[in-house]
């Protein structure tokens, strides 16, 4: 089991470092120093090497402290308890927590041990948008929502805003489809006093393969699937090989939904698209109805990636409202309350004048 928490500290002033999406660097809040991910990785790799040289076998408390490795104890109900390397406070975290921040001193901390072995992500997509952008996006999201209660915008306050690296499975695969259709072509003409309609019937078959790349499916039970699907797509050209250096300042979870379980969703999506693509190749008919189909994704490969998501929680009238924003593209989604008063106002506001205009046209003209 993982047993360490790492605090990425500024080499200049030992202040906590945060990864900043806009610059793509780790920045110190105190002295303003900026370091590239590669620099920090190299720096911490040296520290690890030094610790190894000091002697791995006798990992005393001092050595552990020097390496900023802190003991943990297994907590109750699936919780893990860590000690903050900065202030010593106890941090209660989920089993899946891989990066968090201390609620007392605010220091961002990473639990690299969570990423050991198969749990190490292949990729990470760094945040591009910061907290301010998420708040602005939420306010902008309220605009133009005709049925949003006025009091909601005035009274509701963001209770919590978290930048989360959500574990995603990215699936590659080839769909094999074999579909038969009953299709018709229709021709009409007149002969004498009759209109004759000739219908030619066809047995149509389409079979082939379609390749899909990096269909995402979130691997976290904490995240609503509909929300994670709705903030797609992510721009995969910015994917980086995984490094914990991208995590400081954000929360991160490891997956708790296996690739096998998540693959069902990806496979379903790929098959639906494949059927639609096959249908498109059977064009030119008056009607084309599938009569049998075999669509499957026999071989599917999964890569594990952490993708950036801003989660914003608000509370109004005793109800919680959760919003998610793509930390890379800024696409924000979330369900909003509906004012029935406004609904009826709009309803009659549209129906009334329209009825008056129609009445004028139909009865007076």
């Amino acid at each position: 089991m993982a047993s360490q928490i790492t605090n990425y500290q500024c080499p200049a002033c030992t202040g906590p470092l945060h990864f900043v999406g806009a610059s793509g660097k780790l920045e110190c809040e105190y002295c303003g120093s900026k370091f590239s991910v590669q620099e920090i990785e190299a720096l911490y790799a040296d520290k690890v090497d030094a610790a190894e040289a000091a002697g791995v076998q006798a990992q005393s408390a001092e050595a552990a402290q020097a390496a900023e490795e802190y003991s943990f104890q297994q907590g109750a109900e699936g919780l893990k308890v860590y000690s903050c390397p900065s202030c010593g406070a106890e941090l209660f975290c989920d089993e899946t927590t891989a990066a968090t921040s201390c609620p007392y001193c605010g220091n961002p901390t990473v639990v690299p041990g969570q990423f050991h072995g198969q749990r190490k992500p292949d990729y990470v997509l760094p945040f591009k948008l910061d907290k301010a952008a998420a708040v602005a996006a939420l306010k902008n999201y309220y605009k133009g929502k005709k049925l949003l209660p006025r009091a909601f915008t005035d009274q509701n306050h963001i209770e919590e805003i978290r930048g989360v690296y959500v574990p995603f499975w990215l699936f590659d695969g080839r769909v094999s489809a074999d579909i038969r259709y009953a299709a018709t072509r229709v021709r009409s003409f007149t002969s004498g006093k009759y209109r004759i309609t000739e219908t030619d019937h066809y047995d149509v078959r389409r079979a082939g393969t379609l390749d899909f790349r990096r269909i995402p499916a979130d691997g976290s039970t904490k995240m609503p699937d509909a929300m994670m699907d709705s903030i797609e797509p992510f721009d995969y050209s910015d994917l980086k090989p995984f490094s914990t250096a991208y995590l400081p300042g954000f929360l991160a979870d490891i997956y708790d939904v296996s690739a096998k379980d998540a693959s069902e969703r990806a496979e379903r999506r790929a098959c639906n698209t494949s059927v639609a693509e096959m249908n498109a190749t059977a064009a030119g008919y008056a009607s084309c109805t599938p009569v049998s189909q075999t669509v499957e994704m026999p071989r599917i490969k999964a890569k594990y990636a952490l993708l950036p998501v801003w989660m914003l929680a608000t509370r109004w009238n005793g109800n919680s409202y959760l919003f998610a924003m793509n930390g890379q593209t800024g696409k924000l989604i979330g369900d909003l309350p509906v004012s029935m008063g406004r609904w009826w106002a709009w309803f009659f506001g549209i129906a009334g004048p329209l009825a008056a205009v129609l009445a004028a046209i139909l009865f007076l003209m």
Partner: protein
Amino acid sequence: MKKRLFSLLLALLLLTLCLPAAFAEDAAPAEETASVEETAPVEESAAPVFPYVLDQAGLLSDGQREALEEKAAALSEQHDCSLYIVTVQDHTNYNYDVYEAAKGIFQYYDLGCGEDRDGVILLLSMNERDYAFAGHGGRGETICGNESSWLIEDEFLDNFRNNDWYGGFEDFLDACGAQLTKLENGEDIADGADIITGPDGLDYHSYNNPYETRQRSILPRLLAVILIPLAVALIVCSVFKGQMKTAKEATRADEYLVPHSINLRIKEDRFTHRTESRTLIETDSGHRSGGGGGGSSFHSGGGFSGRSGKF
């Protein structure tokens, strides 16, 4: 009675043999048919006594036919205007136009009574559910004129649409009798016909008048004024409501399909068979029509006036 029955059966037999043959020329217009008759004195002399009710399509029971025959005879005698009912399976055996077929039968058998050959003939053709009635002579033409013919048609059409043949024929006879009575009493035969002149300058009856229908159809307009705005408002509000719930689970993976990766291994389009359906084209023969389905046309000229349509 026996004699009368015998002569009736004989007439039926002769008519069955003669009617299709007489009109076998088919598409020949009424005028041509008349000229053929004029140059065929033999047929004129051989023309049998025509029954008032001739049911070639077999719509009536014997009892019903006899009852109608008696009623038609009584009314014809009472008003000096013969009222005939003829049913056939396919009027195109006589004339492509059902109205012309009715006229042709009337002329060929020299139907009607009196000097003017006053009479009205109702023809039903069952294959395509066509009907026509034509009036001849002073009385017949008057009650089948534009002002009055609607009233007669109104009486029987609903019965025929419900396959109530006997009721329809009875109503036809009653309506003709009523109009003839009005005519004899000097009453307005258009009374109740609610004639309105349309924008095209032609007279229309309330039953089939498109203009008057538009004027009188308050209910559909009222429904439109209520329902359309409600529907539009509901759609708009539903769109607004849809904006409030944006999180939806994805069902497709279009964005993750590798471009040009579709490898179509089998692409077969095999013709299996052909089916054919025929629909008779509705023609209005240049006449004014009150709309599809149950619309009817008014005809006038050549000593006849009347209406035709489908039931």
